[in-house]
């Protein structure tokens, strides 16, 4: 059983987690080598699908961090004045938690 794990230690990166997870699960619940081999065939399919997925992800266009940060900063700056947790209430009228002095129609 240990050699199965050893062979999979060649896999690095987060995607190998899937393969490792399934194989470890099989070993931990005491499945025989044959049963684990069967699971590995389906994990071969999963390996294919994980690799295909990563091909897609490797191909995406990434923008520079400086541009991304600039956009986030712009959004925050444009909305800061409306952010009550940041600037508080502009007047007590808009504060729904204020003590009400007289009856109001809701």
């Amino acid at each position, binding site marked *: 059983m240990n*050699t199965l794990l050893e062979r999979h230690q060649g896999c690095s*990166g987060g995607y190998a987690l899937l393969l490792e997870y399934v194989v470890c699960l099989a070993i931990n619940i005491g499945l025989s080598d044959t049963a684990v*081999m069967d699971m590995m065939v389906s994990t071969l399919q999963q*390996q294919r699908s994980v690799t295909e997925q990563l091909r897609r992800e490797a191909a995406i266009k990434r923008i520079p*961090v400086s541009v991304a940060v600039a956009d986030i900063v712009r959004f925050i700056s444009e909305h800061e004045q409306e952010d*009550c*947790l940041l600037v508080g209430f502009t007047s007590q009228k808009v504060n729904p938690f204020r003590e009400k002095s007289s009856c109001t129609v809701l």
Partner: protein
Amino acid sequence: MPKDDAETTALKKELNDLIAKCKADQEKVADAKLAEKCGDMGDVQRIRLVVKKSLKGHINKVNSVHYSGDSRHCVTGSLDGKLIIWDTWSGNKVQVIPLRSAWVMSVAFAPSGNFVACGGMDNMCTVYDVNNRDATGAAKMVRELAGYEGFLSSCRFLDDTHIMTGSGDMKICVWDLEAGKREVDFNAHAGDVVSISLAPDMKTFVTGSVDRTCKLWDVRAEKEKQTFFGHEADVNSVCYHPGGQAFATASEDKTARLFDIRSDQQLGHYTPPGNAGFTSCGLSFSGRYLLAGSDDNSIHSWDTLKVAHTGTLNAHENRVTSISIAPNGIALASCSWDQSVRVWG
């Protein structure tokens, strides 16, 4: 023991090469650091929120809270087997809904305010109609969504007729509530899906999982668009940035992080003064404050841009399990194992 066949070996090599390519491409675009680029912005003050309402009513740990789209009502779920809908402005209970199973882990309020949903260790998601009562006077149960092979960890309404769920069987499901059928059902992660956050435009969503990754999805597709690595333990909560370009995460690894979608990498790494894991996170209306509920009974806050800790909100006497920020940003609701719910503003 038979060796790896040629295909498996080739796939593994390709996988490692692709991972290396992704990392290299990310580094290529990393031409700036978040805190440095924001160095000349004004500082934000230390967080000054106080408890405006203390909502008492649950008699056991409260596990989840979620605001309605009206920024006034919220729903909480507790191990006492009840959902309570609160009017946070007055502090009053609007409705108490008894549940068939007390093991509730997650609640959701439809943006319209017409429905609430909950689920947990009963491996089901149950939806109630807030405006219609059944014979006993409790909110009418409209759907019991079953068939999960694991606990329900998170749910979010897309609208009054569709709900998305994440569960311990590692899947995401989207249900058509009118038909009572699954529209979409796919394996999402290599571990329990723990948290879902919808983008402001509702076209994409991010998920967090115990497999330590977060993934970005298109609502209409079954394959993830991007995967984000970085956390070193379970990701417990994800929250989209209101600008839609980034998302915050909070994790068992005692950090909160900010990931940017278009540059496909982590921008911010937020640590607290203490040493406790985070259960939940949220961003203020503009996204300048990042808030996270913690195992140390407090809610930590940071300046998202300058990556600086801006204080803690202390009032709870036990782990803070969940926080929710009102859609219009006026308040923050938090709930805890101390059986209380607090509204901060």
